[in-house]
């Protein structure tokens, strides 16, 4: 009897600790299971901005939706769309969970401008015209008349001013939006439908940023709700082609068509009401379950298709909507303040030792492009640097020899007793990262460079970056504007890589000092050339966004930022 009496109590004490260990263990399993899953490899939840160029689109969505949509789209129906992450917040200016949040909020909110995926140009949307000053410090907009919020109130210049002021007050809470309003002084209302946005410093990428969801105008009733209470989306009102029916955390977001909508931008085939009656976003964390659900007809569209599932879906006749992501390509960036990679010769040796095509072929597939610059080819302002990029291990060895790095008995080079050992950090936000880096590790070893791989959580990575612990960091950042180079590499932003290069800084700050696309592109071309020449970043491959669609789904497209565009053209049947 003693046994039975004592056992429960041991159970009780063990249990207190048990839950922690148990849930941590459960979690480890879960993370392991999902590690390869986050196909939204976008480190950046940074929303503002989008972009593209005609080349990529031709390569992109052509592969996509099956057969030309020649017949008139069928009206009505419910489209069920599986995404990986809970949106967390339906407030357009707050961060949410990244791409998946934006897939949902894009349907609810319109922007002042649209970035045309075919050209990368910023074109009118809620603003029928806009003009930047020469110093890129003030921007005049004229709104399109007759637009209303879904609560019935009209969109006016005052609505936009109130939205921008609200973001400015919210500060870092409006993380995705506040970065686009850096140096914001005020929005001056000059008429019912006209206003001027003013900055204390040049904001050359602002026009492009107005095409993002983060800066979408919201109704006055929304702004009356405290900022922290808007995440549920209840009472958060935009001018978009869909309205929120309900949002159940970790389960689904149901949207209803807004009748009377007729102010879509000109790059859409249908600028009026959506064909669909209803859109249901289902939150399905596991990528294998998303694929299986599409194949078994339980959902009609899936986001975040894992690279290894792409060809299988295609072979079974499902539609693919494919578009390379604009922005910073995946590659190795050196922390120049570290002793070894501070040396230009070592960085160049690394650049010539990496066989990017081989990495793409091994870790990925033909849907992913080999990088041709620090910017992906469909980013406005992209300048081809392929001439400067070459896989040439002999050149690497020669560079290292000349710099005094002598191979030791194990093949690893050393100089003055210091081994050529580089700590290289990555996070598992994109499944193939590990495979890609293991290959890079092998390639660098072939020329005598010893690479130690490190991985951890985002805060771990940031802490390590701040301490200056890593020599090389692997990653990307999706954004449809070349300004991503300034925020990543210039000494004026976060400056994690400690690059101290006056020429590069001048080009990066220069592109932000004007809103004239031609001038910006010239600055960006200079910056890209320096980045590759001085091997601050070794570009390896681009990221690609892939959606899978059922055979009878048409008109699902990705926007200039390679995120889901509004579903006004989508139809079933």
């Amino acid at each position, binding site marked *: *009897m003693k*046994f*039975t*009496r*004592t056992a*429960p*109590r041991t*159970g*009780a*004490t063990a*249990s*207190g600790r*048990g*839950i*922690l260990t*148990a*849930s941590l263990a*459960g*979690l480890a*399993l*879960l*993370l392991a*299971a999902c590690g390869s899953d986050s196909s939204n490899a976008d*480190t*950046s*939840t940074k929303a503002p901005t989008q972009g593209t160029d005609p080349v990529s689109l031709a390569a992109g969505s052509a592969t996509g939706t099956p057969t030309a949509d020649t017949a008139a789209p069928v009206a009505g129906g419910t489209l069920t769309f599986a995404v990986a992450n*809970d949106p*967390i917040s339906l407030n357009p200016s707050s*961060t949410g969970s990244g791409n998946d949040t934006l897939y949902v909020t894009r349907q609810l909110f319109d922007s002042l401008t649209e970035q045309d995926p075919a050209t990368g140009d910023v074109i009118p949307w809620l603003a029928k015209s806009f003009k930047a000053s020469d110093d890129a410090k003030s921007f005049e907009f004229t709104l399109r008349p007759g637009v209303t919020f879904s609560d019935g109130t009209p969109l006016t210049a005052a609505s936009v001013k109130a939205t921008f002021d609200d973001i400015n007050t919210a*500060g*870092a809470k409006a993380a995705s939006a*506040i*970065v686009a309003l850096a140096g914001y002084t005020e929005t001056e209302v000059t008429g019912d439908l006209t206003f001027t946005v003013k900055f204390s410093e040049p904001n050359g990428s602002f026009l492009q940023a107005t095409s993002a969801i983060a800066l979408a105008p919201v109704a006055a009733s929304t702004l009356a709700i405290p900022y922290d209470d808007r995440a*549920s989306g209840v009472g958060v009102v935009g001018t978009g082609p869909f309205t929120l029916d309900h949002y*159940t*955390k*970790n*389960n689904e977001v149901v949207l209803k068509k807004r009748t009377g909508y007729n102010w879509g931008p000109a790059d859409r085939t249908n600028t009026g009401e959506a064909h669909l009656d209803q859109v249901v976003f*289902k*939150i*399905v*964390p*596991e990528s*294998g*379950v998303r694929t*299986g*659900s599409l194949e*078994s*007809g339980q959902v009609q569209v899936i986001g975040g298709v894992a690279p290894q599932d792409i060809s299988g879906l295609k072979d079974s006749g499902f539609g693919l909507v494919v578009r390379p992501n604009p922005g910073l390509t995946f590659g190795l960036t050196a922390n120049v303040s570290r002793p070894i990679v501070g040396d230009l010769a070592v960085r160049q040796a690394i650049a010539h030792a990496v066989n990017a095509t081989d990495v793409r072929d091994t870790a990925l597939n033909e849907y992913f492009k080999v990088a041709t610059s620090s910017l992906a080819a469909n980013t406005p302002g992209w300048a081809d640097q392929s001439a400067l990029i070459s896989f040439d291990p002999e050149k690497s060895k020669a560079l290292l020899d000349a710099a005094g790095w002598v191979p030791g008995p194990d093949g690893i080079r050393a100089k003055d007793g210091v081994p050529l050992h580089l700590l290289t950090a990555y996070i598992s936000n994109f499944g193939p990262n590990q495979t890609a880096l293991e290959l890079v590790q092998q390639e660098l070893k072939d020329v005598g460079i010893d690479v130690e791989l490190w991985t951890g959580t*985002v*805060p*771990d*990575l*940031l*802490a390590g*970056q701040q301490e200056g612990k890593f020599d090389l960091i692997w990653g990307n*950042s999706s954004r449809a504007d070349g300004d991503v180079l300034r*925020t990543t590499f210039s000494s004026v*932003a*976060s400056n994690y890589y400690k690059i101290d290069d006056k020429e590069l800084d001048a080009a990066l700050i220069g592109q932000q000092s004007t809103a004239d696309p031609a001038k910006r592109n010239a600055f960006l071309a200079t910056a890209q050339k320096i980045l590759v020449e001085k091997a601050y970043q070794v570009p390896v491959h681009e990221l690609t966004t892939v959606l899978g669609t059922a055979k009878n789904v048409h008109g699902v497209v990705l926007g200039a930022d390679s995120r889901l565009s509004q579903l006004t053209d989508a139809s079933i049947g």
Partner: protein
Amino acid sequence: MGGYLARRLGQAVLVLWAAYTVSFLVLYALPGDAVDTRLGADSGSDITPEQIAALKSDYGLDRPLVIQYLTQLGRALGGDLGRSFDNGRPVTSLIAEGLPATLAIAGAALVISVLAGGGLALLAAGTRHRRLSRFLLNLPPLGVAVPGFWVGLLLLQQFSFRLPIFPALGNEGLRSIVLPAITLALPTSAMIAQLLAKSLSQSLAEPYADTARAKGASRSRVLLRHALRNATLPALTVAGLLTGQLLSGSVVVETVFSRTGLGRLTATAVSAQDTAVVQGLVIFGALVFVLVNLLVDLLYPVLDRRILRTTPRILITAEGRT
């Protein structure tokens, strides 16, 4: 009996406090905080250090650790577990919303575990075939060893994707409970089977079983009427562990089956370093354990009259020895 109860309640409070404190320390020992995790992705951006500092101060993350701990503990004592950093909702209502869905699959899993685990143990103890018995006794370790997400994916593949019998996603309807409950029940069935089989074989070796057999009782009568009754008690002692297994199992199961519930809440809160929610869940888990174990202790006298006859004094001494 009153003293015993008071002692148990005191222990319960201690367990809850320890769970709260340990989880607080663990969460704050991690690098960064919720703000860093949220803005981390925006690291290479124009957010100024001043803006980040303002946000941290707004959420009280810049105050000394001791102060943060004491304020939160104070509020928790008043039943206020704080708000989710992620979406600003009260932690208590997030837990209340997630609970029914988790209870549904955990309850179903418990029923399945008792039937499957109990059945397996009885069959193993009752069969005359030694090989069959040995085979059956080898199943539980396997049930504990296979990872839940893998079983879940296999079940989905077979019974949702290939044969459209059960839905792959969501919480709607009774049919959505079946596959998650089976997945969740696998390790717990194994635990029950293993424990019950062991105590059944012990009971069958007891003299009273020999007596019963000598009196001419059939094999099944000895097993079901005599041995099972006595063997159930030890199995009941692991109720707390089973509950723990069901709660932690829900993290994986709810993710694989795209269900809402406490498991999914845990997964998302941990990855966002949403400390208030994680702590709320730890407290909730500890509370469930304490209650289950208390309930089991109080149930013993009902199941075994002999415990009722023992005097409180002996109960307390027994207590002291553990």
